[in-house]
C-alpha cells in the first residue's frame, strides 16, 4: 500500500471525525483525492466502519452487562474454526470474536441487558453448538480502558504556557 494511504489511515484511526478538508491540508492533497481514497478504502473494506466509544455508565441508565466467554471447541476438517466462528458472529449480542492461542480457542464478547439474558445465550445458543466442547463465562465488572481510550481520564497539559 502506498505511503499516502497509510498516513491517511493513521490520521483517521486517531479521529475519524476529522474533516476531509483538514485531512487534505494535513496530507498536502486535494480534498477530492482524500475523499476518493477514503471511498476506495471503504469499498475494499480496509476501513470497516466508524464507531463511537461511549461511557454508558455515565448516562445513568445503563443496565447492560458484558461478558467474555472462553470457548473450547473441536476444529472441523478443512475449515478449522472459521465456520463456527462465523456462525457465532451472526448473533447480534456478540460484539467481538477472536481466535486465541493457549488454553481455549475462541474468545467471545457478549453484551446483554441482564445477567440472565447473557447466561441464557451461553447455555442455550453457544454451548449447544456442534463442536463446542466447553465454555467459561466471565462477567465484566468495570471498564477502565477500551480501544486505547481510558475511561475517566482527566488528561491535563502540565507544560508551562511558554518555554524556549
Amino acid at each position, binding site marked *: 500500500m502506498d505511503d499516502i494511504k497509510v*498516513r491517511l489511515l*493513521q*490520521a483517521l484511526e486517531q*479521529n475519524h471525525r*476529522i474533516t476531509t478538508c*483538514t485531512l487534505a*491540508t*494535513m*496530507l*498536502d492533497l486535494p480534498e477530492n483525492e482524500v475523499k476518493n481514497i477514503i471511498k476506495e478504502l471503504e469499498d475494499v473494506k480496509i476501513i470497516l466502519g466508524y464507531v463511537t466509544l461511549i461511557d454508558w455508565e455515565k448516562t445513568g441508565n445503563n443496565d447492560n452487562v458484558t461478558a467474555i466467554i472462553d470457548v473450547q471447541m473441536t476444529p472441523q476438517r478443512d475449515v478449522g474454526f472459521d465456520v463456527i466462528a462465523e456462525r457465532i458472529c451472526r448473533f447480534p449480542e456478540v460484539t467481538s470474536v477472536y481466535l486465541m492461542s493457549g488454553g481455549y480457542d475462541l474468545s467471545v464478547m457478549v453484551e446483554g441487558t441482564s445477567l440472565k439474558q447473557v447466561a441464557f445465550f451461553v447455555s442455550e445458543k453457544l454451548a449447544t453448538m456442534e463442536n463446542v466442547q466447553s465454555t467459561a463465562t466471565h462477567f465484566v465488572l468495570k471498564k477502565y480502558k477500551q480501544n486505547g481510550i481510558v475511561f475517566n481520564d482527566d488528561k491535563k*497539559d502540565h*507544560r*508551562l*504556557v*511558554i*518555554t*524556549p
Partner: protein
Amino acid sequence: MKKNIKEMPFSGIRKFFDLASGIKGVISLGVGEPDFITPWHICEASVYSLEKGYTNYTSNCGLEELRREITGYLLKRFNLQYDYSREIVVTVGASEAIDIALRSVLEPGDEVIIPEPCFVAYKPCTVMAGGVVKTVATREADHFKLRPEDLEKAITPRSKVLLMCYPNNPTGAVMTEKELQAIAGIAEKYDLLVIADEIYSELTYDGEHVSFASLPRMKERTVLVNGFSKSFAMTGWRVGYAAAPEDIAVAMLKIHQYTIMCAPIMGQMAAIEALKNGVGEVKKMAGQYDRRRSLIVNGLRQIGLPCFEPKGAFYAFPSVKFTGMSSQEFCETLLNEEKVAVVPGDAFGRCGEGYIRCSYAASVEQITEALNRMEKFLERHVKKQRTIYAVR
C-alpha cells in the same frame, strides 16, 4: 554581583511567559516541548528501577549501559563510531552539554560564531564561559540555512567555535548533507571546533537527518550534542549527552564531575529503555508532528501569513512584517485580544524580528482553533492598517 551576569538580560521568552501566564483560556503555540507525555514503557522502566533501589549516584560520565546504548544508537542511526568508555558524557539535558563544551574549550576572548535565530541559551552560555559572541544572521530567503560565505565573513583570528543547531529552534530549518559539507570545508580551513546541537535530529521530515560529525574528517572537530527531551518526549527527565573527541570529552567530564556529579539515575534508567525499545514510538510521534506541520504551515499561509516550509523540529516561523507590527507588538496584541500565545521571533536573535515562532507541539484541535483566532485578528488589524494608509 558579577558585571557580565548583572548585565545579562533574562531571555525574551521569560518576559512573554509572565504575560501569558496571567491570562486565562490561552491557547498556546508557544511551547518548546512535545505535547506527548513520555511513552509509558519508558516511565515504567524508571519506576521499576526505583523499586529495585536504584537511587544512587552513577559514574560521572553516566551509566555504562546507557553509554553503550548511545554509541550503539549513533552507529546505527548516523554511522558514527564512538568509544563509549572515553568519548561519551551523559549530561543533565543537552543544555548542560552545550555549557560544559563551551567552558571546556574557550579561553577568555575566544570567539564563538552563532547562526541566528537560535536557541536562547547559546549566547549567555558563551558569555558565561568567557567567550565573545559573533552572530551570523540567516534569512528566510535561504530557508534560514547558514550560508558558507556568511560564516566565512564572520571569521577572525580569534574564532574558535561554531555553535549551530539543525533542525533549528525556532525556524524549523534543516541543512542537507551537501550544505553541511560546505560548512565543514570552512571549519577545516579555519580550524574551528563545531558544537552541533542535534537535539531535534529525530524530528526531520522529508529526508534523513545528517549528523555533522558523520561528514568526512569532522568527527575530530565536532562536539555532537543530543538528548532525549524532544525525540522521546522526555523534557522533564533532563537527560542529554555529548559525543566528542577524547581530549574534549575528558575536559567536559572534569567540569561535569565538579559541578553536577552525574545526571540523575532515574532519568538515565529511563533513557536506556528509550533507546532500547522506544524508537518505534519516536516514529509514531514524528508522524503526528508531520501531519500537524502541514496543517499549521498551510493554515498560516491561508490566513495570509507568509511561511517558509520548515523541515524539522516542531516549529513554524511565519513572517508578520506586512502587518506593520513588530514581533513583540504582534504577539502581545494577539495574546491580549485573541488569547493565542506565540513567541516573538526577536527572542531568538535580532534577525528573528518580523517573525513569530508557532509551535505545532499542540493538538490538531488547538492548532485549528488558534488559526481561526489568528485569522480574526489579522482581518481586524490588516484592515485597520489599510484604512490608515487610505486616510493618509
